[in-house]
């Protein structure tokens, strides 16, 4: 048995990881057959000695201060950011929920069993939902509320050092922000929110955030138009290539309308779809054209990329990108924005940024899942569900379901087009995160991709295997419907890491693809059963 990780371990000045996770400690998967060879050898062996390592992988790049004065300056900056998190001038956006989560935890650990990361790590203490929260809470009572002996006696205390601060920042990126733990908490304390606020502190005060989310994420999106790096010309090129391919594949002429003023719908996809899963935007084009919807895409900066990474780590970036989306819709004079199959983009634009957009920026915003439901259930397409005669299960993206309440529309569609649809257990608002939530799906260096395939995504993989337990043989083709770009990225990596396509014939994709695959008016075989 490995020793229990303690709060004080984070403050250790040596360069050893605080926790070492051995694949042998992870809960076994129920998948029959031998595990793929790389399973045991991959991630845990790659210990990264840079900075003050946490657990053998790393997403943040920290300065490595050489002198005590430099270390003290960094700790001072952290404490100054901590104070700002609790001031209304700096953090009106989340102050009330944060205070509530700081002051009322009963330390009952009810939340622990709800967390897939904790559970799937073999209950490594470091990943317990309350581990980082408790450290942060102790810092709050000592450095924001005045501290003192009585406070230390009542709330406990941890010594604030640079190694502790650096490891705490890194630890904020071992939580998917899925908030399943918050749902289980009898008091309503939100450990996901606490991780979110720690991320904000590091980004907004120290300027430290994962490169994938900030420099080549929200900053790149605001500079060239998309976190993929595609500028307007590139996206239009790619889209016209997709149109050609879709036309050829479906046998119906497909053309994506661009920058159409006064269209009813401005459709914004996660631009990653255009590069990694072109069949998804392609399927949307087929469906919207067939249903006679007046729609357009925008080639304005950020207008063709719905991602809003700020929702995971930085309020200013969140607000800026949401504003850009709304400005574009306003300029195009569309009736509404429809967000494509991207979960965090749903939550960012429809929910979290709702209280940032007022006046003429208050353009109606809707989910593509609702629109698809209206089209399919409204009989606007000629459908032949027998074309989808294969087992299908549905992954619930946390951002769309537990955090937004869009639960049924995607199911209504599946019940109409997939005769062999089956649910995962648990599902709906009780679902488990895919392990790619909160930006993890786009983060991968330093062994992180292996970590999220082994630990964060393990529960989801087990759910997928369980959903298809009656037909796991590879000859039966099966489909995990994941109506979210980032979930798809994570599920792709998860299935690839565990070699699930070859061993079990389990493929993944979006919802729109299943609809087109069932359309009578297009050539059969829209879904290609080829692993890419």
């Amino acid at each position: 048995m490995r020793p229990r990780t303690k709060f004080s371990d984070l403050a250790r000045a040596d360069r050893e990881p605080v926790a070492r996770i051995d694949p042998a400690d992870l809960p076994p998967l129920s998948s029959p057959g031998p595990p793929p060879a790389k399973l045991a050898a991959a991630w845990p062996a790659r210990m990264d000695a840079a900075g003050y390592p946490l657990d053998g992988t790393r997403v943040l790049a920290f300065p490595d201060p050489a002198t005590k004065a430099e270390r003290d300056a960094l700790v001072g900056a952290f404490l100054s950011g901590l104070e700002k998190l609790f001031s209304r001038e700096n953090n009106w956006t989340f102050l009330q929920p944060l205070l509530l989560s700081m002051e009322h935890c009963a330390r009952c650990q009810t939340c622990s069993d709800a967390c897939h990361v904790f559970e799937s790590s073999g209950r490594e203490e470091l990943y317990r939902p309350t581990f980082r929260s408790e450290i942060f809470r102790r810092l709050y009572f000592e450095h924001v509320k005045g501290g003192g002996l009585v406070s230390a006696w009542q709330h406990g205390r941890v010594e604030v050092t640079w190694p502790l601060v650096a490891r705490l920042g890194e630890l904020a990126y071992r939580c998917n922000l899925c908030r399943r733990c918050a749902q289980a908490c009898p008091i309503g304390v939100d450990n996901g929110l606490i991780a979110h606020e720690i991320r904000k502190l590091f980004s907004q005060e120290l300027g430290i955030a994962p490169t994938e989310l900030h420099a080549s994420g929200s900053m790149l999106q605001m500079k060239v138009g998309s976190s993929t790096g595609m500028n307007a010309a590139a996206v239009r090129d790619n889209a016209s290539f997709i149109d050609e391919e879709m036309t050829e594949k479906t046998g119906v002429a497909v053309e994506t309308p661009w920058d159409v003023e006064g269209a009813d719908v401005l459709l914004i996809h996660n631009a990653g779809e255009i590069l990694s899963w072109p069949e998804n935007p392609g399927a949307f084009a087929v469906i919207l054209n067939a249903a006679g919807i007046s729609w357009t895409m925008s080639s304005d900066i950020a207008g063709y990329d719905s991602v809003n990474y700020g929702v995971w780590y930085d309020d200013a970036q969140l607000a800026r990108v949401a504003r850009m989306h709304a400005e574009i819709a306003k300029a195009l004079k569309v009736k509404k924005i429809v967000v494509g199959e991207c979960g965090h983009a749903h939550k960012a634009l429809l929910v979290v940024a709702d209280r940032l957009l007022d006046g003429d920026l208050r353009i109606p915003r809707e989910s593509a899942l609702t629109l698809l439901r209206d089209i399919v259930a409204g009989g606007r397409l000629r459908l032949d569900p027998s074309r989808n005669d294969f087992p299908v299960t549905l992954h619930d993206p946390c951002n769309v379901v537990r955090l937004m309440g869009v639960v049924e529309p995607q199911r209504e569609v599946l019940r109409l087009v997939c005769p062999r649809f089956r649910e995962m257990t648990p599902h709906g608002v009780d679902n488990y995160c895919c392990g790619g939530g909160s930006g993890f799906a786009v983060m991968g260096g330093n062994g992180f991709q292996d970590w999220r395939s082994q630990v964060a995504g393990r529960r989801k993989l087990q759910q997928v295997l369980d959903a298809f337990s009656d037909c796991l043989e590879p000859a039966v083709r099966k489909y995990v419907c994941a109506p979210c770009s980032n979930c798809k990225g994570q599920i792709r990596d998860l299935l690839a890491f565990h070699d699930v396509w070859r061993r079990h014939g389990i493929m993944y994709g979006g919802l729109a693809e299943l609809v087109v695959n069932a359309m009578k008016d297009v050539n059969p075989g829209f879904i290609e059963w080829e692993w890419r």
Partner: protein
Amino acid sequence: MTVFVYAAIVFGVLAFAVGTAARAVQYARQPMHLRWELYPVPHERADRAAHGGSYFEQSEWWRQPRQRNLRGELAAMLPEMLLLKALREFNRGLWYRSFPFHLGLYLLAAAAVALLALAGATLGLGGAWPGGAFGRGCVTAVTAVGAAGLALAIAGACALLLRRIQDPALRAYSSPGDFFNLGFFIVALSALGLGWATRQDGAPGALAIAAGLLRWDLAVPIPALLGAGIVLSALLLAYIPLTHMSHFVGKYFTYHAVRWDDAPLGEARRLRTALSASLAHRPTWAASHMRGRGDGTWADVVATNPSREDGP
């Protein structure tokens, strides 16, 4: 002794009321936050609330009238408040310990209120509580509720303390204060129960002391152990709002002001005004991308594109 006991009761009740109200006011005064709800939201339309759905499931939701399902909200709140439903669902082992504790406290609170009502009636009736079947029945009922409350609360607190000591996960996260808090409950309530049970024949009971308190009658000879139990319990009452044990206040806000707060900005003038006020604040975050290029308010910061040298 008697004046000391009366003073402690008044102090305990007042401190509890003021402390609790201060906490509630502190949370209520926090600025509007960005939406951060968690589904299911029980005041949704019943058919949607059943699967945890929201108004976003409707097409063009902004055109539909929003219906608040108060019955659904109550149906979610009552089992949560009275039966600790979430704990029962997600942590049954702890619920077996925590529920008796909380139920015991509810019964004690109910008995205390009923006792004061009886004492008030006693005064109205000229100083003596009627001895008939009804009068005796009332006293017996209040006594039974109080005794059951004491027994449950003490047993629950002992079980919780034991669990906190024995379970390594709970122990590792507990501060000395957490152990003290449970110990305080056990000691104060045990003294109260023992003092009441061991008082001698003819010594004043709970009703006589409550009536004496209302009359401020210093001649009531309160037995020492019972008096100590009352004083300790009163101090405990005063102490609760100073700790996370006031989570009943926090819980109201975590549910109503966060988890279930799904009000869109467009509907509410209150929210729009709050947004204008918040956007006028000047943040002092130090990271370079957090700066605006104008007056430095949030409105300016969010209108600035930090990836462009030449301005928004």
